[in-house]
């Protein structure tokens, strides 16, 4: 029972991550219609916003280790700690949560620049060309990050009080083994909040309504004298922020390296398409569905019956869903079907 509950939690947690990544992609791909292969790179840039802030906060005085003579070995004492003592340590400890604030303007700027500078010119081009240009962009961004930070993963730690595990078992009276890392619970909650925020924004603000109308029928909205272009730019920026934040918050779970975006790229496309093109709800539902199924497929009992099922479950489910439901879970007719 414990293990079953834990797998549900794992599934939700994974699903939260998938849903967040897919949410950003579905805004760009499912609604603006751009096959954005640089989406993984946005996730990666978000993660590296967190890394950059951490590096910034831990700029250090280097205390040389005199026992080593062949090269500069040193112990690092961050300036913040030197100047502010305990307060400095605390600020460094909160580097990841602080990165949320830090990354929002950066990701927004990246998104806006990307849309205005590049994507804008590709709305009317073929999907093939969109793939080539965004894939090229992704490689370039990735290589720039590699040049700055190296190829090795860079560990990120959550604040001290969120490092351990929550003893859910004790609260629910279900035994000691029902523990779950605090940070993963935080991630789940954060994913829920961010998803709700995006939904609320698109459903309850005038801006959101115009955007949704524009997604349905761009020409009509333009005929009403509304500048849909500018709004699409902002949607792109929004998508970049959502994806970037997904990256920031994921760093303590997965130490980021420059390649982390590519690892999520295929998955995010699968989630969006399984959810159905143009459907935000679909993307979120598919994210959670795939996350949970993946967790269950990894259970030993399942694997002993179907060896290797955990390796292919996501794709298998994608195939089945697309065959049973031609447009994914909640797809709109006619979007990217030709």
């Amino acid at each position, binding site marked *: 029972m414990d293990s079953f509950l834990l797998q549900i939690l794992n599934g939700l947690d*994974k699903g939260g991550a998938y849903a967040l990544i897919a949410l950003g992609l579905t805004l760009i791909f499912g609604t603006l219609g751009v096959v954005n292969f640089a989406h993984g790179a946005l996730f990666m840039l978000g993660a590296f916003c967190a890394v950059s802030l951490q590096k910034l906060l831990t700029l250090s005085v280097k205390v040389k280790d005199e026992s*080593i003579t062949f090269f500069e*070995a040193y*112990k690092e004492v961050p300036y913040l700690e030197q100047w502010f003592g305990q307060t400095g340590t605390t600020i460094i400890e909160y580097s990841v949560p602080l990165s949320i604030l830090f990354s929002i303007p950066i990701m927004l700027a990246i998104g806006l620049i990307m849309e205005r500078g590049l994507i804008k010119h590709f709305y009317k081009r073929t999907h093939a060309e969109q793939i080539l240009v965004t894939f090229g962009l992704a490689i370039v961004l990735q290589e720039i990050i590699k040049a700055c930070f190296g190829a090795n*993963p860079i*560990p990120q730690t959550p604040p001290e009080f969120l490092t351990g*595990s929550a003893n859910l078992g004790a609260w629910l009276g279900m035994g000691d083994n029902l*523990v779950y*890392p605090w940070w993963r619970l935080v991630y789940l909650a954060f994913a829920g909040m961010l998803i709700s925020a995006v939904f609320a924004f698109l459903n309850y603000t005038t801006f959101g309504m115009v955007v949704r109308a524009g997604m349905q029928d761009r020409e009509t909205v333009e005929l009403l004298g509304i500048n849909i272009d500018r709004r699409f730019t902002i949607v792109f920026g929004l998508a970049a922020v959502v994806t970037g934040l997904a990256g920031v918050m994921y760093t303590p779970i997965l*130490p980021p390296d420059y390649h982390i975006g590519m690892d999520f790229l295929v998955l995010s496309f699968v989630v969006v398409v399984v959810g159905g093109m143009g459907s935000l709800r679909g993307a979120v539902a598919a994210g959670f569905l795939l996350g949970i199924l993946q967790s269950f497929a990894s259970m030993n009992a399942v694997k002993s019956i179907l060896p290797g099922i955990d390796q292919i479950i996501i794709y298998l489910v994608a195939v089945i869903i697309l065959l049973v439901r031609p447009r994914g879970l909640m797809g709109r007719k006619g979007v990217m079907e030709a």
Partner: protein
Amino acid sequence: MTDKPFSKSILTRRSMLKGAAGVTAGAGALLLNGTAPMTFTRDAWAAQFRNDPGNNPTVKFGFNVPQTGPYADEGADELRAYLLAVKHLNGEGDGGMLNTMKPLSLKGNGILGKKVDFVTGDTQTKSDAARASAKRMIEKDGVTMFSGGSSSGVAIAVQSLAQEMGVVFMCGLTHSNDTTGKDRRRYGFRHFFNAYQSGAALGPVLKDEMGTERRAYHLTADYTWGWSQEESIKNTTEGLGWETVNTVKTPVGAGDFSQYITPVLNSGADVLILNHYGKDMVNSLTQAVQFGLRDKQVNGKNFEIVVPLFSRLMAQGAGDNIKGILGSTNWNWTLQDEGSKAFVKSFGQEYGFPPSQAAHTCYVQTLLYANACEMAGTFYPPEVIKALEGFNFDGMGNGPTLYRAEDHQCIKDVLVVRGNANPSSQFDLLEVVQQVPRSQVDFSPTLFGGELGPYEV
């Protein structure tokens, strides 16, 4: 670096010797190739091998390392070591391990009087790319030896190419039993230790630290290296009296391992063994620690995590999570023997930081090959191979070492290390728990089967 594509023997020597069929087929190529038939006219055996430096004033090596992909940093470090080795071979710099290696035939003036030149390539940590890159070095650049690599799959794939092409390959970082086991090749040599030796070295330390009544749970990367390591560690721990609760295969590059970690909590296991390498290991360890495994008490004992194969770069990636974790490694820069000190000194002065174990192995491999040529008095591969086979040496950082003739595996001391809880510097990530003597990690060369193949190809 001018390209002289047609001055190299275009037809393989093999096909030339096989007679008319090959020559007719290659007629098109022969038209373009003035020198290939010349190989017949030279009578000395030494002239008949591929990429014979002949009368060139230089001999060329190929350094084939991952420059892109997840192991790019490791590859960069390997490349640094190679450059350093070339420098030392050519008599530049402070000479590094040339000052400590025993016995030494090299004279510090290159190899057999020829200066060492090199070319580089990118393996991308993919077998296909690695082989393509190696073939470029062999076919276009004319290397006499090539070396490198950061994974067993690549090493094995490239090693079999070495055999086909008749060019010696000195393995870089590869830890699978298969490299010098069932996939061993006459033209491939491994200085790095293997999974079996990791198990053998870790065994007594695990017994001392954790006792004989433990229940182990394995998470294993689902490919050949992972399985080979799982088996080796399992055999060792079961020999200590430990019970193996479960062994679970995880997909390579899974990223999030939570669904594999949670079952550990309820399994009754008190040791988690992570048979992962690189990014997988960084992720699984980070996440296992997050799940509070290390704070747990099971069966009245502290829960422990073991990572059988460690590297400093991995330790960097895992950050604080590595502290106190036991594992094994081929070499560490803090070793205090003369060879290690000499190498760390020249590497540190050149680049400003200490070398990794991958760098060490690559450096040593280059020197060993060069020395064997000098010993054999020729670059003719069968003779060089014979010089390396059964070669006993010392002063290269792992104590007295034997390059075993039967399987081309180095038998030498292995290090058991622990993530340093209190590092004195940013490089001081691993502390050496024990330098396990080579007698303890020795094994029969027939243990994993395999066949080296012929000297002449």
